[in-house]
């Protein structure tokens, strides 16, 4: 599948933003990150900025962005619509969460924070299900893909929160949580790659042409001499050697290096943590962009079988 920059950026940024919102709402009442509005409000604004930037980026993928509001209507059947509804529904409690923090109404802050956290988790789950529900795409139609989105969002969000908390001079728990989630995310990503590599093709050229009874089916002449939408969109191929390298980059940059840096920051604390933790969050986001680009680039669609053996 063609890795469209708009979607790669959208899923990565909004995943991290929702993750940040989620953990802020959960760790703040537990006293594991600084409880003052001076910490909570800027972190919340960062989360909403990431989410909003991601959502705006996703609009760039639309042929008719001015009609985007229509996407909120089909939540009964469409995961994309559900994602839109969940995203929009998360904004009011998130904003009220911020106002409650500013007003010092701790009880309300907890309630609205938890509502926003629920919305954040639901939105990211819907994002994952958009991809996991597509039967023609071998590497996406897997049980771990949607949980993977949750874990990656939780990890990058926790890394950002840990970075902020370390800058504010605290948050050892957030650092440890982020390091732990990095390890979990690493395990999940490796499992998804293994499952994707082992998954059988959902259909073959022989079954897609109804010619199975004659044996193997090889393309002889394509419909057009020039390229076409379907080939550009579904026929994207990444060189095997490059994919292997990019997987290593995603693995080290996205998971291993941030895990080590976050772990080290948790042990060191103080100024070292304040330097290391934000850097770890930045590295994690960069690695996650590579991971997300690969998620699209490595995905294969049954339509490609019509065009090449």
């Amino acid at each position, binding site marked *: *599948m063609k890795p469209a920059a708009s979607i790669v950026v959208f899923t990565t940024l909004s995943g991290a933003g929702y993750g940040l919102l989620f953990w802020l709402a959960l760790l703040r009442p537990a006293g594991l990150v600084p409880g003052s509005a001076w910490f909570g409000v800027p972190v919340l604004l960062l989360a909403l900025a990431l989410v909003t930037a991601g959502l705006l980026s996703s609009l760039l*993928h*639309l*042929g*008719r*962005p001015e*009609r*985007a509001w*229509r*996407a*909120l*209507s*089909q939540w*009964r*059947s*469409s*995961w*994309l*619509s559900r994602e*839109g509804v969940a995203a929009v529904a998360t904004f009011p409690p998130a904003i009220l969460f911020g106002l409650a923090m500013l007003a010092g109404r701790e009880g309300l802050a907890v309630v609205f924070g938890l509502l926003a956290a629920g919305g954040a988790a639901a939105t990211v789950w819907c994002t994952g299900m*958009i991809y996991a*529900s*597509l*039967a*023609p*795409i071998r590497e996406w139609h897997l049980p771990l893909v949607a949980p993977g989105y949750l874990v990656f969002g939780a990890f990058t969000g926790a890394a950002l929160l840990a970075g902020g908390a370390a800058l504010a001079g605290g948050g050892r728990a957030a650092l440890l949580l982020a390091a732990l989630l990095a390890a979990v995310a690493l395990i999940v990503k490796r499992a998804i790659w293994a499952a994707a590599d082992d998954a059988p093709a*959902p*259909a073959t*050229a*022989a*079954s*897609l*042409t*109804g*010619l199975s*009874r*004659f*044996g*193997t*089916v*090889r*393309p*002889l*002449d*394509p*419909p*057009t001499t*020039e*390229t*076409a*939408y*379907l080939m550009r*969109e*579904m026929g994207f191929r990444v060189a095997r050697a490059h994919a292997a390298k990019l997987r290593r980059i995603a693995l080290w940059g996205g998971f291993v290096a941030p895990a080590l840096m976050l772990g080290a920051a948790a042990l060191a604390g103080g100024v070292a943590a304040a330097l290391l933790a934000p850097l770890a969050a930045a590295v994690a986001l960069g690695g996650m962009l590579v991971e997300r680009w690969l998620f699209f680039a490595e995905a294969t*669609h*049954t*339509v490609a079988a*019509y*065009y090449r053996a």
Partner: protein
Amino acid sequence: MTSLPERTERKLGLVIDLDTCVGCHACATACKSWNGSGVSGPLSDINPHSAGAEGVWFNRIHSYEAGEGEDSRTVHFPRSCLHCETPACVTVCPTGASYKRAEDGIVLVNHDICIGCQLCAWACPYGAREFDEPEGVMKKCTLCVDRIYNRSMPEAERVPACVSACPTRARHFGDLGDPGSDVSRLVAERGGVALAPELGYAPVNRYLPPRDPKRFEATPPKDPGPLPSQIRNPLLRWVDRILSR
């Protein structure tokens, strides 16, 4: 509404005969011609008169080689929307632009509310949906909904443009939900198949497989005997002529 109808009154669709299709692309060009100016029009082209020409087509004609060695054959394969009974292209649509009609099962796009997110193209395993970039919306085969019910056309022409154009009559149109219809009987007779049924989309269209080719045994010619000019004896030559009559 992108929820699917529980059942459709009819299942209109195409039956395509891969035995008689010669891969001439007449169906594709007739389709482009009709639909470029019908309810789906325009079907945009990019660089139509220069290198890199491409555009929206509802019908794409592939050619394949199936089988091995002496048993292999060339098969021309027209690919278009199969108007599935459980089309994920409809259910994934976030806007309600995609829908399946309860009365005849035709899968359509309302271009006025489509946002061009292209998720339906991802959800279709058969490549039936194409993005019209200049228009910013998805386009797909309508089964020539603006022909088949068109009372201003002679009844014989109320079939999809591709069916009407096919010079070898390899394309048939009808109600595949009615076991007594001509198309259903054709499918039963010829062992018509659905494409990739394992994906669970329950396509309505059927493809008739190529027939087995006639086998010509390479037998040596029978000995025709000597030519008349080779018979020296006039009497025997006369007998040969009489018996050869």
